[in-house]
């Protein structure tokens, strides 16, 4: 507790307070997958620090090891070398302090939207009353625009609606870090835009440190404080980092009309094309 408080410093930029406390620290991270043709080194010497209340997006070529990195942060995939720490504590296995939104919504199809969110809420808020837990779950479902679908079975919801439940489920457990692995990759562009808006709206309110993988350059810029570019594998590491200095809250329109937008975009595309 005390170490957390002494670290609580920050800078003010554009009138917004940015905490400089390190939330996530990846140091000399390494991942090796054993294959029949010998070991395959996916990641090596990967260093990355993510600050508290920061929204980081990660782009990189398919197969470079983005999912591998994220699942190691989540604790679902063992580390081959180096360290991952959350607020200075090494990650030992998965836990609800790191919420995950998977690419497929991964809802329990036999449960209703509300039950899916409650599954996590019940687990995290063990001391709350039943009504309180229900209220939390309903609040977040409301936030993602599903107030009319509490009792719909997950299987009856469209992909986009399912992913909304996924977002509600992740925020409702109040994680320290939110990990998103191409959460909108399977959606059509209209639905994707809607969900980006919903995500950023909740995030503006909750300010949960977020790490999101995406293959969509515009999405990466719109959502992020920093865009992290990964080099292609094998032995992938962080290639470049781009600060996005748009003020928050942002609207899609203001971002698109911003003078720096196209230079950011060019920077990212140039990186990906090399």
């Amino acid at each position: 507790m005390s170490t957390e408080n002494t670290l609580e410093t920050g800078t003010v930029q554009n009138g917004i307070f940015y905490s400089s406390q390190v939330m996530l620290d990846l140091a000399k991270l390494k991942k090796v997958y054993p294959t029949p043709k010998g070991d395959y080194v996916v990641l090596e010497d990967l260093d990355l620090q993510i600050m508290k209340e920061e929204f980081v997006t990660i782009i990189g070529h398919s197969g470079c090891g983005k999912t591998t990195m994220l699942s190691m942060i989540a604790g679902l995939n063992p580390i081959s070398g180096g360290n991952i720490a959350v607020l200075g504590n090494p990650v030992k296995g998965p836990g609800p302090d790191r919420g995950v939104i998977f690419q497929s919504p991964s809802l329990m199809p036999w449960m209703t939207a509300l039950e899916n969110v409650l599954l996590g809420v019940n687990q995290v808020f063990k001391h709350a009353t039943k009504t309180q837990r229900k209220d939390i779950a309903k609040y977040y479902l409301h936030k993602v625009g599903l107030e009319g679908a509490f009792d719909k079975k997950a299987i009856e919801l469209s992909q986009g609606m399912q992913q909304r439940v996924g977002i509600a489920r992740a925020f409702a457990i109040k994680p320290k870090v939110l990990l998103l692995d191409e959460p909108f990759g399977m959606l059509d562009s209209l639905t994707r835009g809607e969900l980006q808006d919903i995500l950023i709206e909740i995030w503006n309110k909750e300010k949960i440190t977020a790490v999101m993988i995406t293959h969509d350059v515009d999405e990466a810029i719109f959502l992020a404080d920093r865009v992290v570019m990964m080099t292609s594998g094998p032995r992938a590491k962080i290639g470049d980092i781009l600060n996005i200095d748009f003020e928050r809250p942002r609207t899609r329109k203001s971002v698109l009309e911003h003078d720096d937008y196209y230079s950011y975009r060019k920077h990212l595309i140039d990186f990906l094309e090399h």
Partner: protein
Amino acid sequence: MKQDITLKREGQFLAFLKPLVGKFTPNFQRMDIMGSLKKTVITIFSVLVFLGLWHLGSKALYNKEANFKIEKALNEQGAVAAEAERACIASGDSSCQPNTLPSPLQVWASLQSLIADHKVITADKAAFVEKMSERNAQLIAQGKDAIVYTGRASFVDIVLTSIKTVFAGFLLALLIAVPIGIVIGLSPSLRSAFNWFIQIFKPVSPVVWYLLVFMIVKTLYIGDSSDNAFVISFISVGLCAMWATLVNTAMGVSTVDKDYINVAKVLKLGTFQKIFKVILPSSLPLIFTGLRITLSVAWMVLIAIELLAQSQGLGLFVWEEFQNGANDSNSKIIVAMFVIGIIGFLLDRLMLAIQNMVSFNKNESV
């Protein structure tokens, strides 16, 4: 699309019921009515063809045996005896009728007589209970056993006994196979430990299961004069039929979608929660597929096992009629055959309905 698929699936058996059920998407209404009308006509037509062929076949067999009998009388006893035999067969006298495949009409008549017989026995039973009511009340007051009706079982009683046996066997299979399947499914090492056991005992024939159960139950009931035929038959049925459920449950539990397991891990669900909130619900469709197979296998082996165990069910009925060799025995056997088939079909429909009810993904269930 979905409607089409269900129609295709059920249409084979229940096309003629479809208009009564009436669950149509408006757009396809016309097509569906035309389609099911066509199927209804085809079904009725095929039933008629079946009955016709059956009738002709049984007639041919009847003539063959009749001619043989007359010829035999001619060769062994002369023309007078042959003429007497011919007259006897033509008169319909039961002493000389050919004993072969009965015609549809004979089977229908047997069904009527079995129902009439049931009514007689039921009335008899009611009269007995009435007559004994005072006496039994006294006996019970004295703390003794009441006198129960021990007359002949009617065909309906026999069918009910079979259904009771199959359900008891099914329940036993469920209670053994589902828990063991879950445990095996959860643990890869237990799975390999049990594998040889399942592989070896799964293909064992019902008769052998019966003998095994008989050996054990006989000893357990030693000195006890009560009838253990029912116990032996339902245990044998259960043991024969449980394998599909065991294998499917283990498979369902061991192949839960990795995403769901990851969600459970991230939320740090406890073992109990993980099993009951994630693993079991997600394997329910496979478990029910197994249970459906189990029930149909149970019904299938029941007949043979009842026969062996001398349990008062359809199996024994069929066998006794065959041994009996009375004039209408063969048609009673055919009646039993249809009853067995129809009940088996209805049991399967029942399981399918339950299966569709519990499975969250309608496309996955067959």
